[in-house]
């Protein structure tokens, strides 16, 4: 059993479809801890001590956010800058996060094809997320490939939103029950709602 902490960050929550549906699912789970960063810190005055305590109390840290300009919303960057202090998360004696797991749940407006070397954005999703991946490495955390929904603004198949949100719930529960197949996941670039490597059981 792993303690799961979801950090949700979306400054335009009221305009969101996918992330709203996802966070609705996550919030409803009593097994995990759900934090809406923009609700907790609307004026960006992050409580570093409280955040570090939260990190210490959990095993799996999930960042859920829409991709903005190939990166996270501003508050996550602020959070990383302040909370992952030298001596706490990295550097001398900075081994508090060692062995914990980091995972990202990202929505992107571009299509899967757009995120490729020949595509509109000319780089893969994983390339854009390397700063976070290396952050996990520096903190000696295990980085699991991201759970991604491409073309998140498309209205073509409304059912995708529900599927993505439902699979998100399953993913969080699998992480909680240690049923998520990390090794299988690591073989892949990104994970989607229709091919999550969840071990049987449940």
């Amino acid at each position, binding site marked *: 059993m792993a303690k799961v902490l979801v950090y949700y960050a979306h400054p335009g929550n009221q*305009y969101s479809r996918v992330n709203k549906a996802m966070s609705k699912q996550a919030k409803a789970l009593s097994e995990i801890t759900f934090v809406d960063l923009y609700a907790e810190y*609307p004026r960006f005055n992050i409580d570093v001590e409280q955040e570090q305590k939260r990190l210490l109390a959990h095993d799996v840290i999930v960042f859920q956010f829409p991709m903005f300009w190939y990166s996270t919303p501003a508050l996550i960057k602020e959070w990383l800058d302040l909370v992952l202090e030298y001596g706490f998360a990295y550097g001398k004696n900075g081994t508090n996060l060692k062995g914990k797991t980091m995972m990202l749940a990202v929505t992107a*407006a571009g299509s899967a094809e757009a995120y490729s070397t020949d595509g509109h954005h000319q780089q893969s999703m994983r390339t854009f997320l390397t700063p976070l991946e290396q952050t996990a490495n520096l903190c000696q955390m295990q980085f699991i490939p991201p759970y991604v929904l491409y073309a998140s603004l498309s209205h073509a198949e409304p059912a995708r939103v529900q599927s993505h949100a439902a699979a998100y719930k399953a993913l969080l529960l699998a992480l909680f029950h240690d049923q998520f197949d990390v090794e299988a996941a690591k073989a892949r670039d990104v994970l989607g709602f229709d091919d999550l490597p969840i071990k049987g059981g449940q």
Partner: protein
Amino acid sequence: MDGFLLLAFVFLVAGVIAVPIATKLGLGSVLGYLIAGIAISPLLHSLGVNVVSLQHFAEFGVVMMLFLVGLELEPRMLWSMRDKLLGLGGLQVALTTGLVMLVAMALGQAWTIALAIGLVFSLSSTAIVLQTLGEKGQLKSDGGQASFSVLLFQDIAVIPMLAFIPLLALPELLDAVHSVATVAAHVEHDVAVEVGFFASLDAWQRALLTIAAIGAVIVGGSYLTQPIFRFIAMAKLRELFSATALMMVIGIALLMTFVGLSPALGTFLAGVVLANSEYRHELESDIEPFKGLLLGLFFMTVGAGINFGLLFAQWGEILALTLGLIVIKALVLLILSSVFHIRGADRWLMALGLAQAGEFGFVLLSFTVANGVIPAAVSDQLLLVVALSMLLTPALFILFDKRILPKYTQTQRNEADEVDEQGSVIIAGHGRFGGVINRILLGAGHKTVVLDHHAEQLDMLRKFGIKVFYGDASRPDMLHAAGIEEAKILVVAIDEKEQSTELVRYATKHHPHVHIVARAMSREHVYELYAAGAADIIRDYFDSAVRAGRSALEALGTHPFDAERQTRGFVLNDQYMLREVAALYDPEIPSHENEAYIAKVKELMAFQEKAMRGHSAGFGSRSHRGWIPPGSKEEEG
């Protein structure tokens, strides 16, 4: 009564005309007063005015000045000056007395007369030196501090001198004196005239009484000032404060005279005791005008008292004596300054500044004559020397400014910049508003001077260890006492709307270097403060109301970040509206009659409502655009 008014008018006219001209010519106010005194001396003669008794009255200005100096000097600082006070001051008096005595004996005087002359000439003029140093802002410099130490020691030394001088009396002169009892009347005023009752006591009783008097000044200053001023504050009358301050100073002076101590020393001590009091600036601004007027009068009487008949008759001799005295005194000070490590320009400032004889010289001379120590003929000459040396002092200061200071400023500049004190902040009004500002600034390590005129509140604040001065900040002299000349920022946080506007107007006009942060009580007040020249105008209710509105939005279920953004947008819109409307605001027309103003406000209010609801594509979309996903924007628009 008419005579008094006429006399007052003559002196005032002379001062009012001469001083501005002297200041304009760079001669300083002291020389201006002296010249004014010389100018009116024939008139005073024809009116039959007793210049000497007037001078004794005006000497009270020196007492007030020492009180003010004491106010600027915390006990801690006085203690740190003890070496200079006793060492430098003591040696200056001893060496100068000795040298002058030798010269006098060489000129053929008996040793007793020579010693008395030495004592008289060892003193310098507290009035001229402190006044001039204060005007030049050099009181806090090393040279200024050293000069002050010497002057303070001299003022204290007058007391034992008065006790000692009668011992030098010449029997044949004494007989003459007893037949002419009138001279004693002059002396009556002064420093150490022992009141009959006191003199009749035993030595130990006198000592006890003296100690008790000093103790009374210290204890009374520490513990009684506050209740007295609180009592006075109840009447809410400005002049009562001046009356109380005068009462205190005069009372202390009388007490000191009674026990045979120098009133100047007593009031100085009281000043030091009150230096930490929150009423310090109030006392300062109350006493300051009296001190200035009395000192002005004193300088004029010095000028008027010069006996020109005698001066013209023996001008060569008197001039030689005066210059000789100045050279001797300056020489002694120059030697002592190297012993006490006073260097550079400061050394010359002290040596030239203290080279004159002083007002206590007049006192001692009349005292020596009265006690039959110095013959009247010699004393008349010496009086001229004292007066002339005082008259020449401003010239020596000019010499210092023009010749000596420029030489040293080149090499001293870097050093001076470093020790430069950090510009302080004056906070007018320490209520709920100013109090927060003070806490923030103090917390960040800045120096603040807080003025408030609610005595009850001051009490409460003091319990929490917050340092606040009593005083009405809207009074210019109060601002001056609080140091507006050196301040960087003036925070106007007082409750009274008109006074705050008036204060801002005054400060921007007379102290344009000060950055003003002003608290506005209403929109109209914002416009008025803007017109008055405030740099930062903060509406006191606005930020808190915005936060309350944001809390209400959050309570209604709005996402905290959305509530934050909406209120941010509201603030921006409001500032925009304020600027738009400010142009139409006319202080002459009440807002509710200003039609253009009303129309604009209505228009802007409608605009803002739309903006808040996100229906406007204009400036209002500030609070909403961003975070709206691409694509959905077109659908909405």
